[in-house]
């Protein structure tokens, strides 16, 4: 959580700085405004850096979006994660890949030809993964005959899947020509999942840690590159 906060504020500072920087360089224009349409591809730095400093975690996420209309973007993320969780009673490793597809709605009214985004979006997520139960303890509230030792298992549960929906809120800011940084928060709601026999999906790649109930949370911090494909004139707003 502390880390997420840190990234959040980093992002805010970055935005404030580059937002101001960008404004100075803009020229005033009264001619019909055109906007660029294209594909933006990026990578999640949060997962990437976590892979370096967190011993039990490996993850990568590629993000992409395609501008459909002025406000709507088709958006997707694909990724792969491997995480070992060491709890008091359980130690397990989850490995798998995921894809999330949906759209973003840009709620930010850009000045001039800026192309920043404050957006909300929806995603459908699907993950295919395996769980390995490394070791476990038997919970015994009445240890009259002594507490049991940790039991080493190594049992692997394969062919597990999960489907969920995500609500996304985030920002993207163009810091150099065609280069964007951004971050997003996600709230996940599970639809269905295939649970292992005599174990539970306690971590799901793409969905992250599962809590009692069907909710999960997510965060990403992306650097992405915009590939312009065509330009389109902005329609004048009707006068009211």
């Amino acid at each position, binding site marked *: *959580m502390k880390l*997420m906060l840190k990234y*959040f504020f980093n992002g805010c500072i970055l935005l404030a700085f580059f937002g101001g920087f960008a404004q100075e360089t803009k020229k005033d224009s009264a001619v019909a405004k055109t906007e660029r349409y294209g594909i933006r591809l990026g990578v999640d730095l949060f997962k990437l850096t976590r892979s370096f400093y967190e011993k039990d975690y490996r993850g990568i996420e590629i993000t992409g979006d395609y501008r459909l209309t002025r406000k709507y973007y088709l958006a997707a993320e694909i990724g792969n994660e491997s995480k070992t969780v060491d*709890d*008091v*009673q*359980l130690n397990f490793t989850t490995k798998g890949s995921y894809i999330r597809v949906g759209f973003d709605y840009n*709620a930010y009214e850009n000045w001039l030809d800026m192309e920043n985004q*404050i957006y*909300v979006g929806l995603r459908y997520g699907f993950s295919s993964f395996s769980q390995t139960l490394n070791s*476990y*303890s*038997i*919970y*015994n*509230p*009445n*240890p*009259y*005959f002594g507490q*049991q030792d940790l039991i080493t298992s190594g049992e692997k549960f394969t062919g597990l899947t999960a489907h969920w929906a995500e*609500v996304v*809120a985030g920002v993207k800011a163009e810091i150099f020509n065609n280069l964007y940084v951004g971050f997003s*928060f996600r*709230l996940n709601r599970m639809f269905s999942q295939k649970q292992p026999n*005599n*174990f*539970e999906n*306690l971590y799901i790649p793409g969905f992250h840690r599962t*809590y*009692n109930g069907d*909710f999960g*949370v997510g*965060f990403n911090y992306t650097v992405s590159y915009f590939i312009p494909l065509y330009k389109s004139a902005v329609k004048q707003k009707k006068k009211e």
Partner: protein
Amino acid sequence: MKKIIFLLALTFFINGCEKDDICTDETTPRLIIEFYDITNPSVLKNVTSLKVTGVGQTDALDTFSGVSKIELPLKLDSDTTQYSFVLNSSSSSLLNEDFLEFNYVRNTVYVSRACGYKTVFELDNPSGISLTDATTPDGLWMQNIVINTHSITTENETHVKVFF
């Protein structure tokens, strides 16, 4: 818009602080024995100074008085648990020791993230319980033993009835 983003962010933080690391579920159950009156088999009968000790243990589990129901932990690393039951253990003239041996099959069942796994038991059928007298025979004070249910998965039911 800003309000929505703020609310969403707040939800994430609250969610992030959620605690589910404390085990509150029912885990490994104990064997529940109820004592009944042999002369009136539908009526519960309280025990007096019943000292219960696991065979091989130096300390007694407990000495029960004025209760008709006791809970016995079973061994998790063996399919057999034997207990000594000394009735009227406070009186040297009245005390009477019997042994009960419980034979069962163990199963490991997943509970939750906080609790991990539990062990549940299935008493052998038909030889789930065997009653023996003390090494220096003093007669059996337990007159009849009935297995109420063979599967021991919860402490909310009586597994064994003892009539005396």
